[in-house]
């Protein structure tokens, strides 16, 4: 789908936040100078075209209980597929990417407790014979991704 200037303004505005109000679309539409009906129709169209992946509350996974940690490993090319299978077999591995670096495997561990991160990482080290480096989030810098208007 081709986005027009109004669609882009909607994307930028709604990345900043959405009100908790009985008629929140009417509030946002008034800010944008369009009608509530037009705003909802455009959001529907962008959702259907998958320009919008999610619209709603973003919950802090750690605040709901549980722990998360970015991890990296340096795997020799000849062992890569075998190690991938061993790492991915753990249900705590949520995402796993091959990347262009000596540290060529990067994955996220999601566990119910803080201690669980260390435990799963150590188990993966024993199973694969390779170190797992842990890169927990120390500080998040708030993010917006703006669309050129």
């Amino acid at each position: 789908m081709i986005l027009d200037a109004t669609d882009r303004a909607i994307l930028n505005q709604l990345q900043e936040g959405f009100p908790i109000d009985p008629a929140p679309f009417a509030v946002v539409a008034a800010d944008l100078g369009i009608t509530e009906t037009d705003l909802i129709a455009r959001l529907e169209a962008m959702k259907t075209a998958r320009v919008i992946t999610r619209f709603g509350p973003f919950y802090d996974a750690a605040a709901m209980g549980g722990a998360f940690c970015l991890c990296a490993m340096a795997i020799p090319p000849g062992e890569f597929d075998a190690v991938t299978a061993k790492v991915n077999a753990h249900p705590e591995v949520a995402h796993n990417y091959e990347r262009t670096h000596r540290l060529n495997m990067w994955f996220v561990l999601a566990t119910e407790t803080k201690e669980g991160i260390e435990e799963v990482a150590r188990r993966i080290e024993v199973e694969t014979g390779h170190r797992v480096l842990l890169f927990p989030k120390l500080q998040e810098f708030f993010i917006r991704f703006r669309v050129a208007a």
Partner: protein
Amino acid sequence: MTLDATDRAIIAATQSGLPLVPHPYAAIAADLGMTEGVLCDRLRAMQASGIIRRIAVAPNHYALGMTANGMSVWDVDDAQVAELGQKVGDLAFVSHCYERPRALPEWPYNLFAMLHGTSREEVEALRLQVADLLGDACAGHDILYSTRILKKTGLRLRSGKG
């Protein structure tokens, strides 16, 4: 704050998104058998305590033509990383920006920023913009491109007590 069963029901009902109807909170409240006022008070409390980071739209970078992305990593002076990290996070083409621990000697980088562009050349140009912004506070940097998705599963809410 501690989440109770009502909060958990609200999370379960909204974590895949809000309905695109004129009164979305009333619609969710009706489904959950509570008043709109109670639902909104609960949402506000969760927002105030950080359990809800924000209520917003997440655009799909690929659908917007941002098909190239790189994980840029920076070795930034610890005394300046909080201030400079926020400046990097504020850049329009950065989607995630975190301070993480170094793993010396092999990993000197303490600031991670995902850069998005329409091509790898553009991402490299964006990386130079970040380098300019960090200036002398940055002792070194690198960028890692993903070459394969090895696993991708969503993060799920635990249903048990927390």
